[in-house]
């Protein structure tokens, strides 16, 4: 077995630990929480073990020093200070860089960790760190205590087992399982470090600790366990809770509420004063490729279902119809289930923001408090992968241009510390992400002046626009109003890229701003990209699909209803003049339009357009497929779908009709 096979797992877990450390570091900085020190220590320890096993020396060295420094804090021998915090922050940045290097095939030795290691060592000072193994890994909580007490009353003895597997062990989890199996015959396992779940997932180095109740003697236990092959060393001692050091007991008081499940720290919790234990659902890791294959198969299935429905309709046999109806209901349920498989909490994206906000704010001498809500909001994995960068940009922009310097804020009668809120929530079949700051707001006059100067707008156009509409111009290409070009933003590249990216994900970005009070950016994204409801229409004899999400309604129009205004064809839609677009003209199709014809009214923001088609076929669930990169940039076409009869129909991008 090759180390490479575990690389994916290593990378995943390293990311998780880095994320957890970052979250806890922020918590430590804000609250000085002792629990945070413990969590960071644990993660650093695991990172060290993992990277040493995988042979990534640099990561192992750095985490080793970090672990040593933290051990002193944890043991109450040293106080944590700002210098240590900063060192840990930069250590995590370096580790992240190294992990990224490993991910792209490197050995993780791309970063010079010398200075950071030195900083840790100077913190550790002359104090020799104790061997970690010397400390009992079992923090004593009331639960364990009472179990041990009860056991002792019934003639059991509590033992602490330290099991080390041989270096050459291949299936660590299996060996650990065999050890547990043996132990179950002799008594009862109370706790393990790391916990059993982690051991089952091979998330441990070669050794693990077991708290064990038994009526047998230490020698019998030791012998039984050492019989398991590939067990290198077993050490059995009688467990007594009195030996614990004071700080750990203090820490345990907090742990009482959660006797067994360690809460996975989330970014959101870090911001809350009161910590709420989160019961973790059991999860398994599944290769994304498998899920994608499942999706593809399922899409095929949906297409066949459409075909089946059509055939059943033609045959008109009641029993057949009933069966098809059943299949339809079943697949509908299956569809929502399959779709949720690809859904992930946006937490994964949000998690990196607290640290980023901290460092950006620090760099430009601003004080920013970040509030995150709705990190558990789920959306499609594809969107998750893509949305990070645009959000980073918007957040940087908010800190850079939105939130003022502390002095300025004070003069304006605001709290020195600016507030940045990051919110995610579901609404209909979309996900909304909001970034709101309580900063200076966008200077609309400046934007207007710039737009006029650049010829983006005419004076009349500008006069007719609302403040928010004018402010949206900051998303126009090459538009930057920054007085001072900073390192962060204001380089004139950026916000238009953000907008394009979001739109390519089927999203919309909008903003609200009030001068002196702040700006709110809102990004709305589709929940999922692949299966959508659409109206199938005919233009000439060609079939097109128009996404239902953009359709306001469909209506029938008489030729006599068409009006002409400034050479443009319009019609009266509930008192509003709406321009007409002929799909056949747009797509160069030679076909007659009858004197009465259907119109699909689509909207984009507040604007409406009536799309004239030759016939409406009906509403249907369609699977969106890309047209491929060769045909990218075809106007008014956003993709394709496969119809029930196996033919391809193109999907109309109604945004392009305006």
């Amino acid at each position: 077995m090759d180390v490479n096979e575990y690389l994916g797992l290593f990378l995943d877990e390293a990311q998780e630990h880095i994320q957890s450390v970052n979250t806890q570091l922020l918590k430590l900085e804000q609250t000085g929480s002792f629990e945070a020190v413990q969590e960071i220590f644990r993660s650093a320890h695991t990172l060290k073990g993992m990277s040493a096993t995988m042979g990534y020396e640099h990561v192992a060295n750095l985490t080793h020093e970090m672990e040593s420094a933290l051990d002193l804090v944890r043991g109450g021998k040293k106080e944590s200070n700002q210098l240590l915090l900063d060192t840990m922050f930069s250590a995590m940045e370096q580790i992240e860089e190294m992990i990224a290097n490993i991910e792209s095939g490197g050995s993780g030795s791309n970063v010079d960790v010398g200075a950071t290691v030195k900083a840790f060592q100077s913190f550790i000072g002359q104090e020799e760190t104790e061997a970690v193994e010397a400390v009992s890994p079992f923090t004593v909580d009331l639960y364990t205590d009472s179990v041990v007490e009860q056991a002792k009353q019934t003639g059991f003895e509590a033992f602490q087992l330290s099991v080390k597997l041989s270096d050459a062990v291949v299936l660590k989890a299996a060996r650990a399982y065999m050890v547990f199996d043996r132990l179950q015959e002799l008594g009862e396992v109370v706790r393990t470090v790391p916990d059993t779940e982690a051991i089952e997932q091979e998330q441990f180095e070669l050794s693990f600790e077991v708290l064990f109740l038994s009526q047998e003697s230490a020698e019998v236990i030791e012998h039984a366990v050492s019989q398991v092959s590939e067990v290198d060393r077993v050490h059995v001692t009688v467990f007594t809770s009195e030996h614990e050091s004071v700080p750990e007991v203090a820490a345990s008081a907090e742990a009482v509420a959660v006797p067994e499940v360690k809460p996975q720290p989330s970014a959101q919790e870090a911001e809350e004063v009161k910590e709420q234990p989160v019961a973790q659902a059991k999860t398994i890791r599944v290769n994304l490729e498998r899920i994608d294959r499942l999706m593809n198969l399922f899409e095929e299935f949906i297409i066949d279902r459409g075909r089946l429905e059509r055939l059943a309709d033609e045959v008109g046999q009641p029993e057949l119809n009933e069966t098809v109806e059943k299949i339809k209901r079943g697949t509908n349920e299956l569809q929502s289930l399959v779709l949720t498989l690809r859904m992930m909490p946006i937490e994964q994206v949000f998690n990196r923001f607290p640290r980023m906000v901290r460092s950006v704010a620090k760099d430009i001498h601003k004080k920013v408090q970040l509030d995150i809500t709705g990190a558990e909001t789920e959306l499609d994995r594809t969107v998750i992968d893509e949305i990070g960068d645009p959000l980073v940009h918007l957040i940087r922009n908010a800190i850079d241009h939105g939130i003022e310097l502390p002095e300025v804020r004070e003069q304006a009668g605001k709290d020195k510390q600016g507030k940045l809120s990051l919110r995610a929530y579901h609404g209909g079949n979309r996900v909304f992400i909001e970034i709101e700051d309580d900063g200076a707001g966008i200077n609309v006059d400046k934007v207007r002046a710039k737009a006029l100067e650049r010829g983006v707008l005419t004076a009349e156009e500008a006069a007719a626009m609302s403040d928010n509409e004018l402010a949206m111009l900051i998303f126009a290409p090459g538009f930057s109003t920054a007085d001072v070009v900073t390192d962060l933003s204001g380089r004139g590249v950026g916000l238009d890229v953000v907008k394009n990216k979001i739109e390519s994900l089927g999203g919309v970005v909008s903003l609200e701003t009030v001068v002196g009070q702040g700006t709110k950016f809102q990004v709305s994204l589709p929940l999922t990209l692949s299966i959508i409801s659409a109206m199938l229409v005919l233009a000439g004899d060609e079939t097109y699909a128009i996404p239902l999400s953009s359709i306001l309604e469909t209506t029938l129009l008489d030729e006599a209803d068409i009006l002409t205004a400034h050479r443009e064809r319009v019609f009266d839609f509930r008192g509003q003049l709406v321009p007409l677009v002929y799909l056949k003209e747009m797509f160069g199709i030679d076909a007659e339009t009858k004197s009465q014809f259907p119109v699909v009214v689509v909207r984009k923001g507040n604007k409406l357009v009536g799309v004239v088609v030759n016939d409406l076929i009906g509403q249907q669930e369609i699977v969106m497929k890309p047209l491929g990169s060769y045909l990218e940039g075809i106007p008014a076409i956003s993709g394709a779908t496969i119809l029930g009869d196996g033919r391809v129909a193109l999907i109309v991008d109604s945004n392009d009709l305006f």
Partner: protein
Amino acid sequence: MEQKWVVFSLADNTYGIDVQSVRSIERLQPVTRVPNAPAHVKGVINLRGVVTPVIDLRLRLGYEEIEATDETRILIASLNQGDAGFIVDRANEVVESDDVRIEPIPESSQDMLSAHLTAIAKGEDKLFSLLDANALFEDQHAE
């Protein structure tokens, strides 16, 4: 190294594409027109669930368009940017490099084809031009 080419006909000429890049040879099937696409892009087809663009190689290489016949085939090629189909008049055979001699394209040839042509293969009773399938697709926007 031994090489093989799928040899096909277009009008009176024969061409070859590296067999490595040919995924399959399909009979002509309903093609959905893509509006406002370049003229030689015939449209897209449903190739076992994957929407695949199809190019009329006659138009692409400057021949006259003809009605499809029983022999018309779509060569599905696996290209840098994904799969794509080429409509050809007829797929003839697979030729091995042992049977032909490879010659460079005459330098004097100013033909528009030369951008996509890599070489000419000459055998006892055959002569065909080797096409670079990727080039056929990639510089379509340039023209």
